Structure formats: structure tokens, C-alpha cells
């Protein structure tokens, strides 16, 4: 983690970027915070259930500290003092304990941060292929953007698509400096980010893997139809696609939010046989409708 992303002031809060408490020195005359009283600490119902479900999975409830903080950060956008208090009251731990955990891990933020995370890998393999230039471009593009948190990250485990970034958890690469603007456009447009460069569509590089011919290049944005092959039956896929093999399971809540645009997909496939250019527009329309 570089300090660059985290230290940028985020003036989205009504009272300015400085949240009371975090920047003040500790008052040593006060007794340390104890385990918050559940009766006095209201917790959003969904969050409480999620934390309790996590605690039930382990022999020791403390094991749920990381899942619980993930859940709280999901709700509040960062591990705010209130969020930590709420987790502490559900888990019956001290806020100090949870703060010690939250500050150890790079994915938790104890300062306010924008909701969208762009982690740019700047480790060896990525930097050999231009990650530092991309990171600069990404920082410059997101300058003043209050919704995007750009952070340089250590190896994200995707050196095969170097230089790469993780945009809200979605791995994209290989990137060039022009992609910085496109990532922001896709984020603000609510579209899947750089879909033609997403890791989930990448084939294995090993020539011994697929019996058919192997395409090492990433699928082309203009000509490739992007379809998730999730949920295919045992017959598999008859069409030659850029190589998605991962069925992405959606939770019921997500499905309610994003109903499957079945009809739109059919039309779009029909359109694809006639005019690939039109299909591109059609697919993005379908995506917008879906969301």
C-alpha cells in the first residue's frame, strides 16, 4: 500500500475531511473503551445478522473479526469508529482489539475513503511492463474524483495480465495508460469495467491445456461478444468464446437487483450474427437495462 491513495483528503463529509476523533491525540486520562453495550449500540439489522452468521462458523467467535470488518466496511465504506463500535458490540470484543486488527490489513481503511477502489499493482512483474506509468496516469485521471480511491498495491497475483489493476475486486489487464480514463468512464457509467480485459475471460496460457487452438491475446473489444457462460449444462458451450470458464454465482439478493436479461441476450445474439458493430451497442444497452 502506498500512502498516496489513503492520505488524499476526502471532502465528501459535511464537516470536512476530518472526522472527529481520528486526528486528535488520545486522552490518557480517560479510561479505555470497554466492550460496547448492545442495548446502547444500534446495529443495522443486515449487518448484525451477517456478523452473527460469521461467528457461528468458527469454534472461536473472534475468528470472525476479519469477515465482520469486511461486512462493516461494505456498509459504511470504511472502518469508521461507529462501524468498529457496532462490530465490537455484536462480537463482544473491545473496539481497541478490532482497531488493532483493522489497521494491520491493507484492505481495511480506518480513514474515510471513496467508495470505489482501484488497486494498481506496482510490484516487480507489473512494473517491468509499465505499471508505474499506468499508476501515475490513473492518479492523474482520478485527480479530484471523489468517488474513486486509487492506491498502489503489492502483488495482486495476476502477473499473467501485467500490468494490471483490481477495480472493486475485478481484475483487469494488461493495461496501458489510455485505460485509466476508460476505467473511470466505465465506473461512472455503471458498466462492467474494461470488460474485454477482465481476467475472468482469460484462457490458460499453457499450450497443452485446450485441445483446440490457443489464443494468447486478450479478446478484442470491438469484435468479441462478451457472454458469461455461467450455469452451462454438461454439454458445455458450442461456440468458441474468449475463454470464460468461471460460472459467477449470484446471491439471491443480487439476482433480485439484477434480473437476468434473458430476452435481451437472445436479441443481442441475433444481432451479433448480422452486424457485430450493432451487437456491441446492444450489449451495453442490455447491461444498462439489467442494472
Amino acid at each position, binding site marked *: 500500500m502506498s*500512502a498516496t491513495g489513503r492520505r488524499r483528503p476526502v471532502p465528501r463529509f459535511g464537516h470536512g475531511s476530518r472526522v472527529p476523533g481520528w486526528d486528535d491525540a488520545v486522552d490518557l486520562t480517560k479510561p479505555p473503551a470497554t466492550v460496547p453495550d448492545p442495548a446502547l449500540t444500534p446495529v443495522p439489522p443486515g449487518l448484525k445478522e451477517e456478523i452473527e452468521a460469521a461467528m457461528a462458523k468458527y469454534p472461536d467467535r473472534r475468528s470472525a473479526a476479519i469477515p465482520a470488518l469486511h461486512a462493516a466496511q461494505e456498509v459504511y465504506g470504511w472502518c469508521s469508529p461507529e462501524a468498529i463500535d457496532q462490530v465490537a458490540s455484536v462480537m463482544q470484543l473491545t473496539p481497541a482489539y478490532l482497531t488493532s486488527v483493522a489497521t494491520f490489513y491493507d484492505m481495511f481503511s480506518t480513514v474515510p475513503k471513496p467508495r470505489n477502489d482501484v488497486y494498481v499493482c506496482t510490484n516487480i512483474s507489473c*512494473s*517491468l511492463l509499465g505499471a508505474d506509468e499506468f499508476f501515475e496516469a490513473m492518479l492523474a485521471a482520478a485527480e479530484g474524483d471523489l468517488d474513486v480511491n486509487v492506491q498502489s498495491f503489492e502483488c495482486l497475483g495476476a502477473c499473467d495480465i*501485467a500490468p494490471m489493476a483490481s477495480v472493486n475486486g475485478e481484475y483487469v489487464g494488461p493495461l496501458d495508460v489510455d485505460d485509466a480514463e476508460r476505467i473511470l468512464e466505465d465506473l461512472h457509467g455503471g458498466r462492467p469495467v474494461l470488460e474485454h480485459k477482465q481476467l475472468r475471460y482469460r484462457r490458460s496460457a499453457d499450450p497443452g491445456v485446450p485441445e483446440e487452438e490457443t489464443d494468447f491475446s486478450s479478446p478484442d473489444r470491438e469484435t468479441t461478444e462478451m457472454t458469461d457462460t455461467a450455469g452451462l449444462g454438461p454439454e458445455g458451450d458450442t461456440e468458441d468464446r474468449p475463454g470464460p*470458464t468461471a460460472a459467477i454465482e449470484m446471491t439471491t439478493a443480487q439476482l433480485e437487483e439484477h434480473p437476468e436479461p434473458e430476452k435481451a441476450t437472445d436479441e443481442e445474439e441475433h444481432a451479433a450474427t448480422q452486424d457485430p458493430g450493432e451487437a456491441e451497442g446492444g450489449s451495453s444497452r442490455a447491461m444498462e437495462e439489467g442494472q
Partner: protein
Amino acid sequence: MKLLLDRIDEPGLNTLPVYERRGGYQSLRKALDMTPEEVLSNIMDAGVRGRGGAGFPMGRKISFLPHGDMDKYLVCNADESEPGTFKDREIMQKNPHMLIEGIVIASYAAGISRTFIYIRGEYAMQADILEAAIAEAEAAGYIGERILGSDHTMSLVLHRGAGAYICGEETGLLDSLEGKRGNPRLKPPFPAIEGLYHGPTLINNVETLATVPAIIRMGGKEYAELGTETSTGTKVVSVSGDVQRPGNYEIELGIPSRELIYGLAGGPFPGREIKFWFPGGSSSPVLTKDDLDIPYDFDSMAKAGSMLGSGAVIVIDDTHRVLDVALKVAKFYAHESCGKCVPCREGTNWTLKMLQRIESGEATPMDLDIMASVQEQIIGNCLCVLGDAMAMPIGSMVEKFRSELEAEIEAARERAEGAELDDVIPIGVADEHAGPFPVH
């Protein structure tokens, strides 16, 4: 021969129907027909060595677990954070059931009823896929009470981390799984005796556990025919950096490294030459282009003064400076050091500062000697090997590219229009000269 990447791009392989159609979970049925001792002896015969970095034989690790009725745990280490490594990611994303089957078989062999997968927090898609696969396996009765009518009962919990390299270290991982900061523990006691929740714990890498179904299918002795005598089987190697076709390649251990880098990964870009390469992730001492004919297996790499590590080859060509790579390595370990042991916490930070002094033109060739001595003082002096993991590659770079680094020092001093050599105060003498760079 493909065992782990066998037709891995088949659509829908991450779902149970496709995996079963390809013979999935048949190894589990076969294993449950044997006694746990027979399964263990198969794993022993296979001689499969840990694929996570240390290369410790898996069968022997299982045999260290005490017998008896106490709570025992199995933790699958999916916190794949070693720079250059991305093999587990592809296995979990595309063939999660192979890993789950391996975990169930291993838990049967070791008499373990509670198992966990600790996956790094950044692998969000892979975690979702695994979660769905676990639910499928539970519904089909491959995980749970009295699996397939046998006496074996086990549970599997997926645990997402939150971004810390140190949690790939086995005891740091245990602390993190217990909900603490991921600080490594003093060893002994080793996790096999006292690990998760103070119980005996078996910790294996994703790739190691994913190999188990193939071992049971083939039989341990037949599996051991693959590879070399001491490095049996196949290994997925992640090749990245300055090569034309970066990616995961499954090889039989013992093939020449040249075949791996040139034959499979396409070699360096046209007009460039390999300068040096990491054979096993950024923690392994670097090898040069003269070492390309060394067989790629555990013992040959150790004999060459490096290590196979996690099986991640990073290739650096002649257009890049050694100093830039050393800076990246040092910055990574300085950031990821958990801060518990002084030699690692201070050593990684000072090494980074010394390298930055070279860049800013403040260094003298003497600094290279100090840097080498710092590395020597880190190695073997900490609870875990994170510090060693920086000291070994940095030490090897200073040793093998000393003349280039000396030239770099001179050039930077000229660039900075620095003072005469004598005016530079060596590091440690005056603190204000220790380098102005804060480290985070």
C-alpha cells in the same frame, strides 16, 4: 502430462455436474474405500513436496500429527501473495472442486474433522466461486456428516483474508484465522503439534492439496514416476515479467529451465536478452542467463544457490536496471514486514533506504558492503522467513551485479552533482544523512 491444468478451460468446470462428468470425486470414493493409513501411504509413496514455498513432503507433514481424539484442523493456504505467483488463483477459479476433493481426502487420511480455506482478500471472484462450489459439494454429500456412507465427517469453511503478505506464512496465517493481527509465532511448537486454536493443525498449499485426487487416482507409486527422484510429479509454474507469453504452465519437475522460459513462455521480447530471473518468486535468490540450463526441480535449484519456492519465474531482460528491481523487492518486504522481529523490521527498512541512497546519488560503493552485511544479519534471526526472503534476493543481486550497482552509484552521484567521495557521510554516522524517505 496435465494433472492440475487438465482441460482446465472447459466451460462450466467450476460446477459440480461438469466436474463429476469428468470423473470428479471418484478419487474420494476410492480413498474412502481404503483405510486412512492406506491413503496416507499413497501420499507418502507419491513423495509430493509442498508447492507453497518450503517444499516439505506432504506425507511426512501428515505423519507428524498426533493420533487420538483431540480436535485437529486442516488449513488450506490460499493466501497466494508471493510476487510473481498466480497458480493457485487459476486452479481455484477454474477447478475449485479438485481442491475441495483434495481437502476431503487429506482430512480423511489425517483424521481431521474441521477444515478451512484461508483465501487472500483480494481474490474476490475466486472466493465467490469457491463458496458456491463448497455449497454444491455439501448439498451432494461430499462434505458433511458421514461422507458417502463412510465414518468420515468433516466441515469446510472458507475464510477471506484482508490483504497481508505475512498471512501466507503458516503461523501468521493461523493467528489471522483466529481473528488477530497476522503475526508469526515462535516455532517450536510446530503447527502439527499446536496450531489453530491450540490443536494439531495440518497446513498445505492449494496446489499441494489439489494434487491429492490425482495421486489417489494414479496410485502413489505411479505418481512418483513423474518428475525426478526427489522432486516428484508435475508442478504449475507461473511465468511472468519480460516474456512473450506469461501464464501458468504445468510441467513435469526436472525439465530444463530454458524449455520453460523459452519453449513455453516464449522467451524475452524480440531483440532483447534475459539478464536475470527469479526461479521461485521474489523471495528466491536470482539466477542469471548462464543458469538457464539448470533443471527446474527442488534440488537442482537448491544446488544452484537458489530455490524453487512457490514456482514463480520472473524474467527480467537487459532493458531493465538491477537497481529498479532491487528497489521493488526491498519496498515490498519493508511494507509487508509485520514488525514483530527487529532484524526484519529494521533490516528491510534500512535496506530500502540504502537502495534509495544509491538512486539519489548519496551512496558510496562501501554501502554495498554494508547492505550485504545487513542481509547476513537478518537471515535466520527472526521468527519467520519474511526477512530472509528479502535478504536472499537482495544479497544475490549485490553479489552477482556488483559492478553494475557500482556504476549506478557513480552515475547517480554525477547526476546529483554530488560532492567528492570523501564528503559523503556513511550511513548510520549521522541520522540526517540516513535518507529522507519515509517508509510505509
